[in-house]
C-alpha cells in the first residue's frame, strides 16, 4: 500500500495543488476539478432531520452539509446518534421530518443510484459467515461497475486475507478488513465508515486505514467516518462534526475548531462541549 507523503496530508496542500493546476495545466491533477464544485454541490446535504424511536429522540433537527473531497469525522458518545445519522445517509432509515440528499438524490427514493457510489463499512460486522473471502469478493464485484480487480487483490494482500478462509472463521479484525476491502475496491465517491476503529487492530488503523482515507480524499473523493477515538479523528479528519443526544453541537474544519479553542486537543474540546468523558 503506497503511503501518502506526510507533507501532502493536509487540505491546504489541495488548495495549493489546485492553484498549480491553473498555472501549469497539469493533466494528472484534473481530478481536482471536483474540488471546485464542492461549494456548488455537496455530497451530503441534510436539512432539519429529526428521528424518534418511541420516546427517545435519536436525531433532533440536524442540519449538515458536506462538500466533495476531504475526510469528515463524526464524533459523539455512545448513543449520541452517529449510526442513526449514517443510516439516514445510506437510506436504511427514512426521514420522519426534514430531508436527506446524497449526491443531490434522495437515498430512499433512489437507492441504486446512491448506493452504487457509496462504500460502506458497517459497525455490525454483518458479512455472511458462510462465504469464503474469495466468494465475498466475487459476489460483491457483481454489484459495482467500477470494481477494480487489481486494487481488490492489492487490498487483500495488504490485509493478509486468505481467499479460501470462511468469513465465520476470521477474527473480528479480519472481518473488518474483509468488509473494508469490499467497501474500497470499487473506488466509491463517498466512503462511509461506521466506527471502523471498533473492529480494526491498531496497526491497520494507523498504517492502512489512515493512508487509505487520505488517498481517497486527495483523489477528490469523500470519507465520512464515525468514531469515539478522538485522537484518531484528530490525526485523519479535515472536518469534525460533534453530535450529542441527536443534536449537532459543532461542525467545522478541524483547524478552525482548534484555533477557536486555543489549540486545545479535540478530546478536551469534546469534554467541554459535550460534557462527558469520551471512552
Amino acid at each position, binding site marked *: 500500500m503506497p503511503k501518502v507523503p506526510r507533507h501532502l496530508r493536509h487540505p491546504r496542500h489541495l488548495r495549493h495543488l489546485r492553484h498549480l493546476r491553473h498555472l501549469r495545466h497539469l493533466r494528472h491533477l484534473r481530478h481536482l476539478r471536483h474540488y471546485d464544485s464542492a461549494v456548488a454541490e455537496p455530497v451530503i446535504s441534510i436539512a432539519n432531520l429529526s428521528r424518534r424511536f418511541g420516546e427517545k429522540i435519536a436525531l433532533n433537527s440536524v442540519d449538515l452539509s458536506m462538500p466533495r473531497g476531504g475526510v469528515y469525522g463524526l464524533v459523539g458518545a455512545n448513543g449520541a446518534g452517529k449510526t442513526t445519522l449514517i443510516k439516514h445517509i*445510506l437510506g436504511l432509515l427514512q426521514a420522519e421530518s426534514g430531508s436527506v440528499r446524497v449526491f443531490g438524490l434522495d437515498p430512499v427514493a433512489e*437507492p441504486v443510484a446512491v448506493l452504487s457510489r457509496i462504500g460502506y463499512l458497517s459497525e455490525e460486522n454483518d458479512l455472511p459467515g458462510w462465504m*469464503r473471502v474469495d466468494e465475498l469478493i466475487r459476489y460483491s464485484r457483481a454489484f459495482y461497475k467500477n470494481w477494480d480487480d487489481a486494487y481488490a487483490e492489492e487490498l487483500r494482500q495488504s490485509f493478509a486475507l486468505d481467499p479460501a478462509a470462511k468469513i465465520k472463521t476470521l477474527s473480528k479484525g479480519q472481518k473488518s478488513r474483509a468488509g473494508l476491502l469490499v467497501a474500497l475496491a470499487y473506488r466509491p465517491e463517498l466512503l462511509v465508515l461506521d466506527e471502523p476503529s471498533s473492529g480494526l487492530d491498531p496497526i491497520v488503523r494507523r498504517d492502512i486505514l489512515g493512508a487509505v482515507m487520505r488517498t481517497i480524499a486527495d483523489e477528490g473523493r469523500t470519507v465520512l467516518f464515525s468514531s469515539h477515538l478522538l485522537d484518531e479523528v484528530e490525526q485523519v479528519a479535515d472536518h469534525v462534526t460533534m453530535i450529542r443526544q441527536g443534536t449537532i453541537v459543532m461542525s467545522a474544519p478541524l483547524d478552525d475548531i482548534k484555533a477557536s479553542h486555543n489549540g486545545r486537543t479535540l478530546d478536551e474540546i469534546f469534554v467541554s462541549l459535550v460534557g462527558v468523558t469520551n471512552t
Partner: protein
Amino acid sequence: MQSSAAAFAWEFGWPRRWIPVALGVYLVAHGLLKPLLLGSGATLDLGDGYIAFALVPFSFTFMYFIAVFSFGLNGDLAARQSIYPARLFTLPVSSAELAGWPMACGLAAMSMLWVIARIAALWPLRLDLPIVWPGVMMAVVLAWTQVFMWMPYGFRGLRVAVAVIVLITLDTLVILAINYKMSETALVAFLAPQLPVAYLCACLVVARARRGVVPDWNVFSRARVGEAAKPRSPFRSMAAAQVWFEWRRNGRSLPVMVALVLPFEVATLFITGFGSTAYVFKVLIAALLTPILMAGFTAATVSKANPFARDAYGVTPFTATKPITTVALIAAKLRMAMWSTLATWIVALALIAIGFSWSGADSVLSEWGQWFVTKVGMPRAIVAAAVTLGGLLLGTWMMLVQGLFVGLTGREWLIKTTGIAWLVIFMALGPILEAIWDSTAALRWLWNNWIFFPAILVVLKMTAAIVIAKRLSRSGVIGDGALAAGAASWAAIVFVLYGAFVWWADTPVLPRYLFLLIAILAVPLVRIAAAPLALNWNRHR
C-alpha cells in the same frame, strides 16, 4: 441477584413469564365455554377436533420449551460447535452448574406445563390421563435434547441427525411400553433414572465445549485446509450474484430435507408389503405431499429477512446497502425458490421411482395408469398428469415464498401476530369442521351455497390485488409498465389454465365460471405482489 441459580432462572423465566398466565387464561376460558354455550347441566361430546383444539397450545408450549432450554433458538443447529452460548462459558461457575441450572429450569418449566395440562385434562376436558409418567417423559426428552444440542460434533449437521434418532428411539420405546400395557410405576422406573444420566452427560459435553473442543472427522475438509481457492469466473450480472447468494443461503435445505425423509416413507412399501392398491396410493400421496410439507418448514428461513443478524428481523446492512432494487432482491428469492423446487422434485421423483420400482409397487401404478388412459384418453391423461405435476411444483414453490410478504416486513409484532393468527385458525378448524360434519342442516346449507365461497375468495383476492398494485405504483417500487406487464402475464396464465380445465372436464354438471374462479384462485398473485412492499418497508425504515 444472589446466586447463579437465580440468574439462570431469571434469564429463562422473566422473558417468558406470560406463558403460564396465558395457559391459565386459556384453561379458564375453555372451561367457561361449555356452561356458557350449552348450559351448566349439559354434557359435551368430546370429538377429536375438540380435543385437538384443547391440546394444541400445550404441544406448542412443549416444543417451545425444548427450543428455549436447549438454547436451540439462538444457535446454529447444523454447526459442529456446541450451541451452548459461549458468553456463559466465562461466568465464574463450574461446568456442572452451567449444565445443571438450565436443566433444572427446564425441568421446572416442564413440570409446570404438565401440571397445567393435567388440570386441563380433569377440567374441563374430563380426560382420563396418567398422573406422573408423561411429565417425567417430557423432562427426559428435554434433558436428552439438551445433551445432544450442547455436544460438539465432528460433522456438520450430525447434531440434528443424532438428536432425531435418539429421541425417536426413546419415543418408540415408550409407545411400545404403552402398547404392552406397562404400569405407570414401571414407566416411571424406566424414565426417571435417565435424568441423572443425562445430567452427567451434559456436564461432560459442556466441559468439552467450554474447553473449545470441536472434533473434525471430515477428511475432505482437512485436506482442503491451506489449499488455494480456485478462481471462478465473475457473475454475469448482479441479479445472478443475488440468486447465487440466496441459493447458498436457503436453496439447498429443501432438497436435502426431502432426500433425508422420503426414503423412510418409501421404505414402508418394503416393510409392510403393498398388500392393496389403496396402500400403494396412500404411500404415493404421502410421498408426493412430502416436498410441500417440508417446504413449509424451510419457508421460515426463506422468508426471514436476515437469519444471521443480531436483530433477527431487519435486513442486514450488508444486503440493504447493495445497489440493487428491492424488486430485484425479491426476484432473486423467487428464482432461488424455483430452482430449489425443481431440485427437490428431481430428488423426490427419483426416490419415488426407485422405491416403487424396487418394491414392485410400480405394477399397481402402471395398471392404474393404463385404466386411466383408457377411461379419459391419452391427451387428457397427459394434460391431467401435467396439471397435477404443475400443481405439486407450484404448491411447493408457493409454500416457500408465500410467507415473504410477512417475514420480509421485519416487524416482529406483525410476524408473531400472523403466526398466532394462523395457529388459532388451525386450532379452530378441527372443531368447526367436526360441527359442520355432524350437522345435517349445515351440510344442506353448504351444498346449496358452496359456490359463493370461491366467488367471495375471488372478490377478496382481486380487491387486495388492486390495493397492492396501487401502493406499488405510488411507492415507485415497481414501474407502471412492469406492473401492467405482470398483470397481463398473470391474466394470460389464468386463461390458459381456465382453457385447460374447460377442455378437460367440460360437463353440464359444473358451470364454466367455476373453472374460471378456480383458475383465478390457483395462480398466485397477491402474496407475491405484496413481497416487494414488505421488503421496501423493512429496507427503508
